[in-house]
């Protein structure tokens, strides 16, 4: 079974803090994705990566950056957290054009 894990299930941060969300997959997938999931807005793609050190902006990249130094790990960084970044963050991975496998999510609250 593909396993996608995220470092935290719940996270509470203060406005202005730098926040790191980590995602690890164990199936050698080349593609990894970060989404945020908000009620009424569905899933929106923040960034994705199709190879180590490669990244592409998704639909809502503002206020976020990413890092992919190793194939199995894809980090989402909030440089200066703001209250409007309070959300559920989902990581996913896929092999080529196949099914995306999702992690359990990190619920981030920014106070």
């Amino acid at each position, binding site marked *: 079974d593909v396993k*996608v894990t995220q470092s935290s299930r719940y996270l509470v941060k203060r406005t202005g803090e730098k926040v790191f969300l980590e995602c690890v997959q164990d199936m050698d997938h080349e*593609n990894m*994705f970060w*989404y945020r999931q908000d009620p*009424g*807005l*569905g*899933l*929106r*793609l923040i960034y*994705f990566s*199709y190879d180590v050190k490669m990244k592409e902006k*998704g639909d809502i990249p503002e206020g976020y950056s990413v890092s992919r130094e190793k194939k199995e790990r894809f980090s989402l960084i909030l440089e200066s957290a703001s209250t409007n970044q309070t959300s559920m963050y*989902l990581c*996913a991975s*896929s092999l080529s*054009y196949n*099914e*995306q*496998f*999702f*992690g*359990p*999510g990190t619920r981030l609250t920014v106070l």
Partner: protein
Amino acid sequence: AQRVTQPEKLLSVFKGAPVELKCNYSYSGSPELFWYVQYSRQRLQLLLRHISRESIKGFTADLNKGETSFHLKKPFAQEEDSAMYYCAQRNTGFQKLVFGTGTRLLVSP
């Protein structure tokens, strides 16, 4: 821009009733269409994709290019079908998925 529309935020039915969750897409080419499902306290997972043309857990979805629709159907809903359902499309040659806003299906006994 690509857009996936799921017009219903909430669909509430009784057990045994037919279910249809609507999905319309905007791409004019030949996209791939998917339905993902998220059960309570579980991670988002693929339910079905149009190219496999299979029935999963009694659900089917037919791609209608004329109407640009990919509605999800089940003839007899079960309580365990209660979940959040997302329709998604991927355009040929691209890796990323575009998701709809989701429909919450609630099946009551």
